[in-house]
């Protein structure tokens, strides 16, 4: 049962991520990204990280993707025309991809990861998160709060319209 769901969510994630990369239209790409996020949230649920799945859907699918769609429609970009790649680029990409495949397959061939599946899920409950965030990670939480404030101020400054003031009476 879990295997079936894993296959389903993993396929959904990877296929829609591939569609993000190949789609000409930016709106469709953002929609495929949304689908990919749904798949990732499903994977999080399978990994017993219920809170993270919820927060991922809330923050990414709710806020980030809608912001993206808003900006895409605001800018109204035309679909790009892809120029054909040069021979050098194709050769380099093939070589790099082959090397990556060799590295990855040798890593996964000698890795022995699959022995620890009998561990109980720590991330399933809410209480451990709160405990960690308010004891061990208290300083990072404060720093992240400050970062959010800085980002907010930065966005306000960036999106202001600056008019030329010289010559104004």
């Amino acid at each position: 049962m879990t295997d079936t769901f894993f296959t389903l969510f993993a396929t959904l994630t990877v296929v829609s991520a591939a569609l993000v990369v190949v789609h000409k239209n930016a709106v469709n790409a953002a929609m495929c990204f949304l689908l990919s996020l749904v798949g990732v949230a499903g994977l999080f649920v399978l990994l017993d990280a219920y809170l993270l799945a919820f927060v991922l859907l809330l923050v990414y699918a709710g806020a980030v993707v809608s912001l993206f769609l808003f900006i895409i429609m605001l800018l109204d970009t035309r679909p790009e025309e892809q120029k054909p790649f040069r021979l050098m680029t194709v050769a380099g990409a093939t070589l790099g991809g082959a090397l990556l495949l060799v590295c990855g397959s040798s890593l996964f061939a000698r890795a022995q990861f699959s022995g620890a599946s009998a561990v109980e899920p720590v991330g399933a409950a809410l209480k451990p998160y709160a405990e960690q965030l308010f004891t061990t990670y208290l300083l990072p939480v404060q720093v992240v709060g400050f970062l959010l404030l800085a980002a907010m101020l930065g966005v306000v400054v960036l999106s202001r319209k600056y008019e030329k003031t010289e010559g104004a009476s």
Partner: protein
Amino acid sequence: MIHPTLTAYLVVSALLFGLGFFGVLLRKNTLIIYLCLELMLVASMVALVAFSRFNGTLDGDVFVFFVLTIAAAEVAVGLALIVALFRRRHTVQVEELNFLKH
């Protein structure tokens, strides 16, 4: 009880990261490059949660929290930059944004 192994999750994560990476390299639209950047962040989140689950710790899960926060802030600032750029240059295609080139 979970049946898929850690390797399976890591393969999904690696595939997502690779797709995002190639998207950043190959696409010309700044917005789609940004979307692919987000794809790479999500791939790292999958790897973190999987490692955390299979090792019985919470550190990876808490780290995903911070990654999510940073990603949200980054998206806001990045999109504001793109809009400011579009306002000045009236394009978001990367090959036309070459005014810093000597």
